[in-house]
Each structure stands twice: as structure tokens, then as C-alpha cells.
């Protein structure tokens, strides 16, 4: 959506804008890649296989995923070379981003110890190195020598792209019913991708269902 100038919510976060013209155009573009040019597989062509497995098997040319895929791909893809790039976008670049948070219970009896542990997990050099070594997520603090080691690892050859994408971050809306909202939109996107509904119908129905079921405070 945001790569085409659209969004899920209005700027004041008080109304849904799922069926905006920009979003419909973005979905039409994506659906056409599946149903018209078929450069993206249909659900039948996936045949129940996950997109990771299809990519590793050499049956998908491109995949949208995250840095947590690196270690699996590096280990299991041996018969072709692969690399990463920032998603091109249409009117703007936009890269999906999420982060993990650590919280301390307000009623804890060991608040100091909990804080010490949180500080270690979030900001120490040792924890940053553990995160880098696990190749699952990036630490929230910058230790140049730790990150330098990360950038040297190949594949992917252009690992610097991981940091380039940070210039185009978009985050999901922070609402209490996020999972339900995602399922409502996801179901309608599937309906469009299978041809059961036009993109306009699917997003109109999503908009209606979201307005009925999701509270925006």
C-alpha cells in the first residue's frame, strides 16, 4: 500500500482507508501479476508448499522475506546464487519493519535485577554479538566492530542492503485488534488473488468488515 502512496489508516489514525484508490490500484497491480502475467504463482501452483521452500527449490525467482531467512538460505541453497535488494516501490519505497520489545512487569519484586537483565539483552556488546551470530535479528544498538563482522558474511553479497532499508521503514498500525485486522484484510486479499473478487470488491468488503469489527480509539 505505502509503496503506492496508500495506507491502512488515515493520517489521524481514526478511520480505515483500505479501499482508497491508491490501495485498489496497488492490489490490481499485484493481482495482475498472479492472474494475468502469472509471474507470481497461484495458490494451486504453490500446491501447499511454502514460499521459502519454493524459493530454495529454485521455483521462485524472488521472495519477500526478512533477514531471518539468511542462515537457512545460506545453508540450504547450493545450486544457485542469491542476493538481496531494497524493494523498488512505485511512488515511494517502503520496507516492512518490526521489532521485538522486552518489558518488565510493574508488580515485579525484582525490578532492579529485571532492569539489569533488560539492559544487558538490549544494549550490551555481548548480546549484540549473540544476535548477530544467530543471524535472526539485528541489535538495537550500534557496535561498529560487531556490525562490520556481520557485513562481511556472504551470501548475500549485498548485505549492506539490510541497513539501506532502514531509510524506508514502515510499521504496522499499533492497534489492539491487530491480528483480527490482519486476518480480515488477508482473507480479502486472498479472495482477490484467487479471482473470487475484483480488487475493488475485495477492498470494499475489507473496509466494511474493518469498520464493523475493529475499534480505533
Amino acid at each position, binding site marked *: 500500500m505505502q509503496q503506492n502512496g496508500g495506507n491502512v489508516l488515515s493520517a489521524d489514525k481514526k478511520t480505515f482507508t483500505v479501499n482508497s484508490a491508491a490501495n485498489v490500484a496497488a492490489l490490481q497491480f499485484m493481482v495482475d501479476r498472479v492472474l494475468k502475467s502469472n509471474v507470481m504463482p*497461484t*495458490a*494451486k501452483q*504453490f*500446491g*501447499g*508448499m511454502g514460499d521459502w521452500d519454493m524459493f530454495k527449490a529454485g521455483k521462485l525467482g524472488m521472495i519477500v522475506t526478512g533477514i531471518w531467512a539468511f542462515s537457512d538460505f545460506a545453508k540450504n541453497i547450493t545450486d544457485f546464487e542469491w542476493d538481496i535488494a531494497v524493494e523498488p516501490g512505485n511512488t515511494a519505497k517502503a520496507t516492512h519493519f518490526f521489532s521485538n520489545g522486552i518489558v518488565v512487569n510493574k508488580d515485579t519484586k525484582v525490578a532492579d535485577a529485571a532492569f539489569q537483565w533488560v539492559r544487558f539483552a538490549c544494549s550490551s556488546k555481548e548480546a549484540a554479538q549473540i544476535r548477530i551470530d544467530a543471524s535472526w535479528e539485528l541489535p538495537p544498538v550500534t557496535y561498529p566492530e560487531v556490525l562490520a563482522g556481520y557485513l562481511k558474511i556472504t551470501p548475500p553479497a549485498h548485505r549492506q542492503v539490510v541497513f539501506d532499508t532502514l531509510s524506508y521503514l514502515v510499521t504496522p498500525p499499533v492497534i489492539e*485488534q491487530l*491480528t*483480527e485486522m490482519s*486476518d480480515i484484510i*488477508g*482473507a480479502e486479499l*486472498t*479472495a482477490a488473488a*484467487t479471482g*473470487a473478487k475484483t480488487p475493488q470488491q475485495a477492498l470494499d468488503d475489507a473496509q466494511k468488515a474493518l469498520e464493523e469489527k475493529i475499534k480505533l480509539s
Partner: protein
Amino acid sequence: MTSRSYQRGFRMALPFLLPSLAGMLLFSVIPIVVAIFLGFTEWNGLSKINLTSGFFPMIVDQWVGLKNYGQILGDKEFWRVLGNTGYYIVLYVPSILIASTIVAMILNSGRKMIGLYRILYYIPVLTSWVAGALIWKWVLSPDLGAMNNILSLIGIHGPAWLQDKTWAMPGIVLASIWKDAGFFGLILLGGLQGIDPTYSEAAGIDGANRLQKLFRITIPLLTPVLFFILVITLINSFQLFPQVMIMTTDAGPNGATQSMVERIYKYAFKYFKMGYASSFAWLLFLIIFFFTSIQMKMQDKWVNYDA
């Protein structure tokens, strides 16, 4: 039994019953009663409640009356899910009755290595749904799966099964029949072996052929067992869940395999609408109760308890 001896017998039995009664109270009766109250609230399942002290204040605090029930019944999702469940029942119940009758007749035929057949038919029953559903997910894979490969041998181009909204539910039904036929076949086998063979011999002397014996003697005498299976399969069908969750992630293309329990699970543990999910669960109970009551009323017309 006199009232006094009954009371003495009850007192003697009580200590032996207590472990089961405690489990039933803790894991069935209390949750059922709590769910009645939760169905009238918008509790999210996350805020702390204490059954002994803070439960009723929480109920009062989060009370929404019949709002959940109104929303569920007014949402087309409920009727679509009920339709999906009805579609499953229409396909599954007759199929499982036929399949388990065939299994029972094979197991009752007295052929060689019958013990081995009994084990083979019962293995799916012992297999966990997770393992079974993953196997069937592969079996029904459009290009790589065994089912479409077998169909192609006789010139049939199989559908995309779990990725096709028309064929997703029949795919779930196939897996369910594979899983349940051995269990119900074994129950029917018990029924078949309880039929006195002299009925069949007498009919043979009177000139009845095999089909006449089957439809005039065997099946009428099996009706109590068939009735039991019909009641159980209908209840199980309304509770359709694990195969849907595993075989069709997010309940199939365009929600084609969404079921009542799948919705209850998602509302309770994914969307954290525990009050709404409790209302959904109680509606499911009322639906099952309604259909089971009809079955119980109708049994007089076709179930034969005389033999």
C-alpha cells in the same frame, strides 16, 4: 434395590468416584458454568480474574448483556461457517456410515489374516490428527500428491483440493473418513457379532438371498449401533477443528473450511475476545443439543431394539 441399600452402595462407591468427579468438576463443570457468564461480557482473556474473589465484580464490570449473541447472529460470518459445517456434515456423515459398514463387514468376514486387517484399519485411529493431517496435506497436493497421481492413472485431472474453495471441504472429509472409519467399523463389528446367526440361517431356509438378508435382517438389527454412530458423528462433525487447522492454514481459500470450533479458537486465543468466543461456544452447544434432541426423538421411527 431399597432406598437404604442404595444409599449404602452410594456411600461405598463415592470414594472410588471422587478422582473422576474432581477432574470432571475442575475441567468440565466449572469451565462450562464460567463460560455462561463470560458469554455476557467482553473479557479479553488476558486481564486477571480470580474465581473465588474477583470473578463476579469482573463480570459486572465487563457486562454487555446479549450483545455478543446479537453480533454473532447478525454477522454473515456465523451463517457462512454454519453452512460450511453443514456441507461437511452432508458429505461426511453418510460417507462414514458407508465406509465403516464396509470395514465392519470385511472384518467380520472371517477371512485369513483378519487380525492383521483389524490392526491396519485401526492404525489411523491411533495416529494423532497432527501427523494424519500433515500426511493428507501431502496426499492432496495438486501436482505432487498421491491422490491426483492415482486419479491421473485413470485419466482424471484432479483438482487443487485444499487450494480450491469447491474441493477444500471434500478434501477434509476424505481425511476424516480415513481417520474415523476404523473406529466406527470396530463398533459396527461388535454390533454385527452380536447378531444371532440363527436369524440369517432361518431366512436362508426360507429362500432369502444375500441382499435380502443384508437389508431385511442385518441392517435392521444393527440400527441401535448405527443410531449411536449417527449421534456421535453428528456431534463430532459440529466440532470439526484439528484437520481444518492443519490441512488448510487460515481455514482454506476464501474461508471455505472455516468451522465453528475454528472460529471459537481464533476469537478466544488469537483475537483475545474471550467473551465473544464463549457466546459462540454456547451457540454451538445449543445447535448440537437441538440436532441431537431431534435424533433422539426420531429414533422410535427407525431404530429396532427388539432383537
